[in-house]
């Protein structure tokens, strides 16, 4: 049950697994976590089964769980997420806990994340085609992270308009506004990491340090962006910097695929690969790899 050495070329886990394990590690034991939709559903289960057995999961449909759901779920309202829950409430009740500062961490997806950790999952302006970029894939859904699942890839783009309409906030705007910190998961590309999002669905650090306080947000802000290439962190200036690169990814690759000049230290760490315990938890749970393959 010890961690395998980091791998670079022949990484022995999928990107999905790496991201889920990275997301799971953002949860500290005993924390109250607003789980959100899609990949984080699995990250919460993995955290509960590994290092954070006392974490409490809040789901915006009204569910509170102290035990992981007994089997794979595709949505937070799937019957296994209700059976054996600690409490089934309504949305206002769990959102009230969030607004009252009772939630340590919230997970989000997004179509776009910018330099200051602001999230867009509502609408993207398109001005002509961007060379070589399959935009429809990037914006397939507002929560974004599902783009990592092959079953969910949109193979027939139909964007002729001046904008692409995404599903919208869901609870993302609320979680970003009110959790003590939030973590976003998304694909790493220039298009999905623009310097400034065109629409702030979920407020990050706005235009920099002090912005959240100025607009009246009570706390919080982005803590990490876990992408398909790296983990970004946020400094005191409110701006993202390169926290770690995933095994097999170069810093140059990350910088070249980020929509602004991303701050990066000389010596950037590598994102730890999933431990065998984590991999086991992921694979036992997502048996067919729907989310993590």
């Amino acid at each position, binding site marked *: 049950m010890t961690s395998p050495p980091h791998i670079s070329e022949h990484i022995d886990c999928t990107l999905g697994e790496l991201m889920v394990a990275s997301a799971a590690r953002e949860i500290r034991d005993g924390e109250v976590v607003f789980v959100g939709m899609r990949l984080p559903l699995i990250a919460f289960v993995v955290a509960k089964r590994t290092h954070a057995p006392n974490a409490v999961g809040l789901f915006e449909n009204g569910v509170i769980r102290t035990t992981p759901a007994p089997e794979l779920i595709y949505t937070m309202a799937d019957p296994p997420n209700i059976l054996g829950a600690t409490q089934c409430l309504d949305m206002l009740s769990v959102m009230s806990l969030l607004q009252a500062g009772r939630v340590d961490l919230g997970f989000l997806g997004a179509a776009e994340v910018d330099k200051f950790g602001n999230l867009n999952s509502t609408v993207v302006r398109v001005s002509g085609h961007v060379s070589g970029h399959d935009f429809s894939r990037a914006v397939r859904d507002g929560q974004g992270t599902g783009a990592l699942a092959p079953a969910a890839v949109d193979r027939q783009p*139909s964007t002729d308009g001046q904008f692409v309409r995404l599903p919208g906030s869901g609870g993302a705007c609320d979680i970003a506004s009110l959790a003590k910190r939030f973590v976003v998961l998304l694909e790493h590309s220039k298009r999905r990491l623009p310097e400034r999002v065109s629409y702030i669905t979920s407020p990050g650090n706005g235009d920099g340090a002090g912005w959240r306080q100025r607009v009246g947000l009570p706390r919080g802000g982005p803590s990490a962006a876990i992408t398909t290439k790296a983990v970004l962190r946020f400094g005191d200036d409110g701006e993202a910097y390169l926290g770690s690169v995933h095994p097999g990814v170069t810093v140059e690759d990350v910088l070249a695929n980020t929509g602004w000049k991303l701050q990066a230290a000389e010596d950037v760490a590598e994102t730890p690969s999933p431990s065998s315990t984590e991999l086991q938890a992921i694979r036992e749970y997502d048996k067919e790899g729907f989310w993590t393959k």
Partner: protein
Amino acid sequence: MVDGLLMPKQLSVSDAIARFVPDGSSVVLGCQMEQMIPFAAGHEIMRQKRRGLTLIGPISDMLFDQMIGAGCAERVIAAWVGNVMMGSAYNFRRKVEQEGLQVTDMSNFTVALALQAAAMGVPFLPTLSALGSDVAKDNEFFAEIESPFPGSDGARSPSSATKKLHAVKALRPDVTIVHVQRADCDGNAHCWGNFGIMLEAVKAAKCVIVVAEEIVTPEVIASDPNRTVIPGFLVSAVVEAPLGAHPSPVQGYYKRDDAYFRQYHEQTKTQADFDAWAQRWVHGVTDRAGYVALLGECRVKELGVKRHAYAAPADYGY
């Protein structure tokens, strides 16, 4: 409340929709998020070719996309419209991007607060959510206000010395349609599982349609008043529709039909594809029984409860 005292409330789904969901109505659907989505009622609205509806909900897992594809909707007030498991909803995208379907973007919390304000009979409720976001910009449901109690805030973080707040405007829908496990013929309804925004949506609406897996005796409902989520006096119509929430799950009755959500995603990428889909599943059947027959016994059985898990007893005696 005195009107219609003697009118029987138990109706067929087609009578309920015909009577209580006229063209131009604002309708709340999908209150319980991904559980108990009232597809049976939604499909009947499509069959009856309602036009000009305003669809209201937190997230909509596929149903809004279907109603939009069928041309029922003129406006959407929601936090998220798509297919939760699969991503985008094609009709929604198409109608918004190309045909100007009007969308008022809310967040889950603020759509709940808007309905809760109406449920509580106040013009607005305050929140700290969405401050600084574009969700609140040029959105009739938001206004920035200040607390009249400086120095005191209900939040618990020491950093929250701010006085700014959003007021979220009350939203009073014409009709709320909810699916539940069981109800009596007066509309008193039991539900268990996650409630989402059901409680406030029911109280906010001018009229309520309850669709139940089973109609039971009033004694069953009265045996557990804490399980009652809707009191009959708020209900205009109650409909019995077994499997009426398929493909979404109903806790204790059937699980989610994940394959159906995948198939819908694959089969509805163009308007023509969607029309073919709707012809098969909506217009090609006359009612929910027909739909269930189309699903087939085998699939229905596969979705059924494999392992019962009953709640611990609760004694109301004295």
